């Protein structure tokens, strides 16, 4: 048996049974992770249809290659790394030009929030299945590295250590990205009309801008 039992992994026995071809184990393993994997895809690629395709691609790839999971990480970590790869591939395929993150610098000045590095996707998909549109657009306006970090930890609740393992970076890097992603999101959400209650700064002249593209909201 190629996989070693990992007592810290709640999925370890299911994985072994799934490797034996047991359908029930495959089903249970799938059901345990479907929601988080789908939400990871959804929040990073931005729409339910592509997210479903990404999730499908990832799950099938994962289960068809289950023998390559050696138990060195948690099954969840291994699986979500595959989902991240699939999402990343999908995002790559959509970009006609190289990722803007590689061209523009991200500047974080002392006076204010990090500059949001825009993605090349300007078009807004009108039908988003009732998801919060300002959040969706705000997330999509983030550079992918930041987006994945904040989605994994703040939205999906992955511990920083596991998220770091999933993305293949150090824990410090994850936290740093989360710090900057949150700032960028706060600015984007504020522009979209969301108010942070702590932002009621009497010196702030901006006020609340009326939500612009919210006729998209289902």
């Amino acid at each position, binding site marked *: 048996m190629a996989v070693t039992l990992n007592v810290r992994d709640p999925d370890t026995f299911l994985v072994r049974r799934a490797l034996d071809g047991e359908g029930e184990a495959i089903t249970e393993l799938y059901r345990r992770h479907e929601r988080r994997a789908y939400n990871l895809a959804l929040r990073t690629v931005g729409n*339910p249809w592509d997210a479903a*395709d990404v999730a499908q691609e990832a799950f099938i790839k994962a289960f068809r290659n289950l023998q390559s999971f050696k138990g060195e990480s948690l099954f969840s970590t291994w699986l979500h790394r595959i989902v991240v790869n699939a999402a990343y591939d999908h995002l790559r395929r959509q970009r006609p030009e190289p990722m803007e993150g590689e061209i523009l610098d991200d500047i974080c000045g002392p006076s204010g929030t990090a500059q949001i590095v825009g993605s090349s996707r300007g078009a807004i998909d009108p039908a988003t299945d009732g998801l919060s549109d300002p959040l969706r657009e705000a997330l999509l306006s983030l550079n992918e590295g930041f987006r*994945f970090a904040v989605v994994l930890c703040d939205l999906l609740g992955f511990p920083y250590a596991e998220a770091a393992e999933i993305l293949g970076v*150090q824990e410090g890097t994850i936290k*740093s990205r989360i710090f900057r992603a949150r*700032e960028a999101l*706060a600015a984007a959400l504020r522009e979209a009309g969301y108010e942070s209650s702590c932002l009621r700064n009497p010196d702030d002249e901006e006020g609340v801008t009326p939500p612009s593209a919210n006729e998209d909201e289902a």
Partner: protein
Amino acid sequence: MTYRGNEPDNPGTGRPMIPSGHLDDWAESIVDFLDGTAEPNISAAIEAHLATCPDCVVRLADQRSTASYLRGLPSVDAPEGLEDRILGELLFPSKVIHLPEPQESRWPTLWHRRLRAWVPAAAAVAAVLVGVVAFGLISSAGGDKDMTVSAPSSTVAAAPAAAMETASAPLEDPEGDTAFVGAAGGIDQPTTTAGAVGTETTTTTAVAVAGDAVTDRRAMVDALKSSAGPLFLTFRPTPTEPGEEGAGERPGPDGTDGTDPDTGRMITSASDRWIEEALNQLREFTQLEPLPAAFSEGDLVFAAYLNHDHVSAFVDLLRSIAASIRLDLMLQTEPDQDGGPSAARISEGASEVPLLLSRVLPQPSVNRYTFTTSTLPPAERSSTDFQLPHEAGTHVLTVLFIRR
């Protein structure tokens, strides 16, 4: 592969090379600080800074409220049917056509591209299906079901190939409208697309799939969504091998074929337990009952107007029922030989056919949606402007046969 956040700062710690004197100097420690897990000396330094920097106080408040907002967001349900699709492919890989997998790693991308190639073709298929139905080709006479599949085949391409065959029938009809030539010509499109992608596929005659039947989920959904109907679904037990688990529950050669004199329906015997189960599940999840004798002509058949918006949910529900009782589900544009009379009756009595309404079940539940039925109000029916739901373009008249 690492995912770059494009930090110009120290990749190890994420701290800026040039201290700004503000929150950015602590970057990752701010996250810990908000979580209450920062080192005491770092916390003290941050607090000392905040005491003198109102800008950073605001920034920190943004951090905190954004984090709290994001963490409080509920996760979203995975879409209806995703599980069936994925588990279906993992547990029961398509039996009909076997694709040699050239390289394991290319498989997901290939498949993904095939799905993408299929989507635009679905419109052409749907156009043909609608055309076939609209010209009243409900009778099965003249349908040659032994046509060979000449297009490169895959589970996905079987549907455009099937549509080609459906389109061929009217072409052979001397009275067929010449408009069909154009429609059938458009079908070449999906074959070429599929062919361009799938050159490594082998062509195997589709044995389990009848010449004009659709079993692919996506094709079924597309067909139902784009049609007014009537479209014909059939539940049929999956053929079982001898000795296979559950074989004993299939109607064997001794299954009675008696007819209930009251309803004209077939009596279900002990070996037909699966029929009872199918009826139960349909009743529970859709409130649909088999049509009475006046419509059914002895068949076990259901009919309903299905809203185009609920097609996916309904198809997934039927597939879920089929999976649980080990049935095959297929979609055809015309009824099979035996179903012709029922189909005719249903069309005649179309105003009696119930409407399916969908209802979302609260969590947690295996099926996200369930359906209820309502009948078309009689008053409306007598109005001269009254349009049947499928004529109005919002619904598809769906007929479901249960066959041994």
